[in-house]
Each structure stands twice: as C-alpha cells, then as structure tokens.
C-alpha cells in the first residue's frame, strides 16, 4: 500500500513519467535509425519527437512542446511521408546493410558520444547568478518582436527561399528527361 501510495506521489509519478518519456524518446530514436524500411523510420521519428515534446514539458515549456508536436510531427514528418508517398517506389527499395559500414558508423557514433559524455561530466555547469523566472508566453512573444526581431524576419525569408527552392527543384520544372 505504502509502496503504491508512494508510487502515486507526484514526484515519483513524475519520475516514472520522465523515465517513460525518455524510454519513448530513445525507442523512437532507435526505430528511426535502425530498421531498413523507411516507413518504420518515419514512425519511429514521430514517436521520438513526441517523446522530445514530453521532455520539453518536463523542462517547463509546454508551449514549445506543443510547437514541437505541431511543427515537427505535424509538418516535417508529414511532409516526409508525403514525399515518400508521392514518389511511389521510394519506400520499396530496401537497401542491404553492410556490416563493416554499420560497425564503423557505430564506432564513430560511440566516439562522439564518449566525447560528449566526457564534456558533460567534466564540466561544472554554473547557473547564472541572477535568474529570472518569467516563463510566460507573452514575454516570449515580446522577445520575438524585440530582441529577436531580425531573426524572426529572416526566418520568414528562409522559409520563403526554401519553399521557392523546393518548388523549382522538385516542382514543375523537373521533368525527368526520359
């Protein structure tokens, strides 16, 4: 009983939830990376991104979590799926694995991870002396229109360029020569 009660205590629940979300994220990531079928990968990515959204919630920003779901899961993943679906045979090709390559990739990936872990563990992360606790979305909006005004403008240009480019490259102009 005690143990059950302790289980439903908020911190413990939070811990369990956190663990679950981390597990979800990592599982999703693994699925996104390992299987050879592209559709599994994309589903894995969706799972993973959902997990990341959950982590964002844990990090105190439900707004960003929402955005994550909206933009990543909602837009990016969907566009990938569309790309796969629109170009019919894209998902049919299942390239074989080459073990040496996987091994090498694993090695380099592991090396990078070890390097990052070393950095993380060896660094003394100092919090800022003065910390504001203003998490409101209003402030966020205000920031976007003041300090990050330029970036905000520019990213629209980025998106415009990307869309234009996508249209030109993949769009009407590119009929395959055959």
């Amino acid at each position: 009983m005690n143990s059950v009660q302790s289980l439903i205590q908020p911190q413990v629940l939070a811990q369990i939830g956190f663990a679950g979300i981390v597990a979800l994220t990592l599982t999703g990531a693994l699925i996104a990376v390992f299987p050879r079928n592209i559709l599994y990968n994309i589903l894995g990515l969706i799972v993973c991104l959902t997990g990341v959204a959950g982590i964002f919630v844990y990090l105190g920003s439900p707004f960003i979590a929402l955005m994550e779901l909206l933009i990543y899961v909602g837009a990016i993943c969907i566009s990938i799926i569309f790309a796969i679906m629109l170009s019919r045979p894209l998902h049919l090709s299942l390239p074989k694995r080459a073990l040496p390559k996987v091994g090498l990739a694993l090695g380099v990936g592991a090396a990078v991870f070890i390097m990052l872990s070393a950095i993380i563990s060896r660094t003394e992360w100092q919090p800022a002396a003065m910390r504001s606790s203003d998490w409101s979305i209003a402030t966020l909006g205000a920031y976007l229109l003041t300090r990050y005004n330029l970036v905000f403008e520019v990213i629209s240009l980025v998106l415009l360029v990307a869309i234009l480019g996508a249209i030109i490259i993949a769009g009407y102009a590119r009929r395959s020569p055959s």
Partner: protein
Amino acid sequence: MTSSWFQDPTLLAAMLGALLPFVSFVLIMVFTRPYPKLSATISVAAVSVSVICALFLLGRHWHLEHPIQYTTKWLVSGELYVPFGFMLDQLSLLMLTIVAVISFLVQVYSLGYMAGDPGFSRYYAFQSLFAWAMMTMSIAPTMLQFYIFWELVGLASYLLIGFYYEKFSASEAGKKAFVMTRVGDIAFFLGILLVLLNFGNLNILDMNSVDVTARMSPALITLCAILIFGGVAGKSAQFPLLTWLPDAMEGPTPVSALLHSATMVAAGVYMFARIFPFFSKSATAMTLFLAIGMITMLLASTMAMVTRDIKQVWAYSTISQLGFMVMGLAAGSYFAGVFHLTTHAGFKALLFLCSGVFIHAYETNDMYEIGRQGGRGLKIPMVCMTLGAAALSGLPPFSGFFSKEAIMGGLAGLHNPIWLWGGLLGAFLTAYYSFRLIFLILFPSKIKEPHHGEHGGHGHGDDHHHAGLYWVMAWPLIILATVTLVLGLFQTPLENFLVGHYGGAEGHGGGHHAWLLYVAVGLALSGVGLAWLEFGRKGASQVGFVERMEPVKTLFAERWYIDHFYRLFLDYVIYGIFSNLFTRNDRQVIDGGIDGICRATVGGGRMLSFLQSGMLQYNLMVMFAVLALVALYFFF
C-alpha cells in the same frame, strides 16, 4: 712611374719586347685571320722587335750591378697585392734573349715550313701568344706573375701541339700535355700559396734572400720547394710527369723546336735557376731533385735508344738533357745548369729544325725511311744535324761539351759518387743514341735510287718557289749551327756575367778535375763508336744491342710502361671509379632522391584522393572521427 715611361729606355724596351707579340696575337686573332701573309708579317715583325729589344737590353745591362725592377699594380685585394712588372737581372736577360732569338728564328723558319697550311694565320697567332707569355714569364718579378705566364705558356703549348686538330693523336697529345703539366702546376701553385701564406711575399728577390729562413721553418721550406718543383717536373717533363713530351711531337716541327726543346720545357729549369737560392736552402729537397733528374735522364735515354721516330729521339734527348740540367742545378752548380740550358736551347733547336727539313721533305718521321730515301742528300740540314748531335753528345769543341763538362764538374763535387756515374752513363747513352740516328740517315743499308736534288721530291708547288722556301728554312739552321759552334767559347764571359750576381754561388764549377774531362769525352766517343759499330760501318746490321733484347726493347719502347700506368689510372680510377660513381650518385641518389620526393608527393595526392571516394557517408565518418579526435586531444 708614368713619367719615366718614355724616358727610361730599359723599361721601354722591356715593355715593347714583351708586349708586342701580344698585340700581334690580338691583331691576328681579331682582324687578320683571313690574310695569312699579313698575319705572318705582323708576327715576325713583332718578334723581330722583341729580339732587338732583348739584345739591346742584354747589351745595355751587361755589367749589371743590381737587378732592375719595375712594377705596377695589377690587382689589389685586401692584404694581397699582385704587381705586374719586369725584373731584369742577369738570368732573366739571358733567358729573354734566348727566347727572343729562338722564337724569331723559328718564326722565320716556319715561313717556309708552314707555307700553304690552312691554319697559317692561326699558327702565327699562337706563336705570338707563346712569345709574349714566355718573355713576360722570363722577366717576371714575382712568383705569381711567373706562375700566371707559366700557365699561359702551357696554354700556347696546348694550342700548338694540337695545331693539326683534325688528327686525333694531335688533339689527344695537346690535351695530355696540358693536363699533365697542370698536375705539376697544381703542386707549383700550392707551393707558392704556402710561401705566400707563410712568407707573405712572392717577390723572387725576396724569396731568394736569406730572409726566408728566418720566416719559414726548414721543413716548410722543403715542402714548398718540393711542391714548387712539381711545376718543374711538369713543365720540364721530369720523372714521373715525363711522358707528355714525346707525344707533344705531334705538333708542327718548328713548334717542337721552339716549345718542346729550346724554350718552354726549359722554363722548368729556368724556374729552378730563378729561385735557386730558395731551393738550395733545403738540402733534402736538392737531393730529391738530383735523384729525379738522374732518373729522368736515364729513363729518357733508354727510351731514345729504341725509337725509330726522328723527332722522338730528340724529344727523349730533350727530356734527358733537362734531367741533366736539373741534376746540375740540384748539384749546386748554378752556372753549369744555366749554361747547359743556353747551349741546349741552341743545339736542340737546331736539331729539331733540321729534322723538320727532313720531315718536310720526305713526309715521314721514320729515320730508317728517311735514310732509305736519301736523306743525306739534303746537305745543309745533314751537316747541321751532325753538328747538333755532336754538341748533344758533348764532343769538343761544340757548345754542349763545355756545358756538359761544367755539370759533370758539379756532380763530381758531390760526396756520393753515384751521381757522377749516373751522369757519365747518361753522357755515354746520349752519344750512342744521337749518333745512332745520324748514322742511320747517313749510311742507310740501302738507298732508293730515284732520288735527286737537295730539296726532296715530294713536290707541291713549283721548284722555284720551293727553293725559296728551303732557303728560308735553311738560314735559321745556319745561324743556329754557328751559335752551336761558338757558344762554348763564351763560357767564361757568361759565367762572369751570370755568377757575378750571386757572388760565386755555392760551388759552381766544382774543381776542374782533369781526369773527368777525359773520362767524359772518352765515354762520349765510345758511345759514338758503339753507334758506328752497330749502325755506321758498312754492312752493319743496323740493329742496336738493346733491340736485340726483346723484353728490354719493349720496356724501353713502351716508355717503361709509365703511360700505361697513367692510362689505367685515368680509366679505372678517374673515369671508372670517381666519375662513374659520382655520375651514378648524381642520377640515382641525388636526382633520384629529388624525383622520388616528387613522385612520393604525387603518390600521396593519389592516395589521399581516395578519401574523396564519392561515398558520402564514409566522408562524414572521417569528418566526425576527426572531430572526436580533436576533442579527445583536449582531454589528454
């Protein structure tokens, strides 16, 4: 100095005499090469002026008290001061006169001998060059100037030996002469460098002064003397550098007469005499020179006994006489050596010019052949040559007799009798081989009959023209013959003139041993007699006693295999080992190394370009691996 240019006749004469031939050389080379007559005229005119100047100087300074020196700056570098100038003393005046006179005679003779040769102008240019170099050398005030013109004399010799450059043997002989004398010259150069560095001065008078012993240790003097003697050995064809001289006979005969008997090769002996006091400060060196002189003399005599080539005989005899002079000087008889040099110049030039007439007439060098073709028909040369041979053999009353006796006297004054015996043996051999030649031409075993006339029948050009040429050649012979006849009588005035200077230098004449006189003449006569027995008398087999002993003959004919040794040395050591090795090293190690580096670089590029395999993912792996490594480096 400049003010006295025209006021001082001595200086003017010396300058004119020494420099005019150079002017003539330049003029001929640059302007008058296409006009042979003009070239010859210029050259002969120049050398005539030189003769006049030389004789004038000799006459003017017959009673010279102190050497006259004129120097001007030639070059200054730091502490080093190289003057150019003239130093006139008895010895140089004598040498100047000898050179000028013989040059003049030879040039006149060559007017006939070289007539019609396509290289006529060139010949006279080189003759002028030689005259200039030799005369300037004779009157050089410092050893450096001496060395410089010594080298130039060598150059002229090279050019003249190789005058008939189409002939391989001629150009080869020229090269050999140059390189071989240069070996000696290097030693000479090192020697004077040592003197310069230790003594600080190369002025001949200073070197000859007693000062030297104060500034240089005896060992050093010995070393310097031996090194400088290297030059003598090279130029005067002393052992072991003697083999170039016989080959040098490839040049035109007048050249042989001028350079390779009378003047140039005597330069070595002249230098010996020039710094005689310096040399005589080292007893060790003097003994060594004595030995070298004797070896040279005997070796050359043996070689002369077996050759059939008329010029070769005189060439070997030249070597042997030079050896004899060196012996004389090394024995301390300053005057005897120089006197022999003087007389030798006369009779040896005579001998060569005579043989030149024969060679010109019969177009062969073989004495048997000349005899067979009626060589004795050429009266003037025949007579002159006999005179010369007699002088060479030291028969009285010819000049050679006097000078030889002087040297013998010097040798007799030495403690060790071996030198004297060597000298006497040499005298015997000399007489033998000279008269071997004379008798072979005079009394050939059989004569081709159809020969007539005095001037041979090989006929190019008409007779009249030919006769003119013959007389052009004959006059110098007559003059030289006269000199040979009378020069011996001038022994005492010459001795006074020369030795007065060095104040009765150490034991010049030695004692006059009367017995020596008889022994020497007797030996010479017995040499002549032996030659008569074997070659001269009727029905003689005309085969010498040496020629009967095949191995000895071969040994002599092959010049004691000295040349073979040099050839082998050159082929195997210089070409085979050094040159070959270095060349290979150059191509394969040094250049190959460089090329190898280049190839390795390109190869490295090729290897690295495999990184860019087009496999994007491997490239990315490299990228991240490097990144990880770089980051890891931070932790260590």
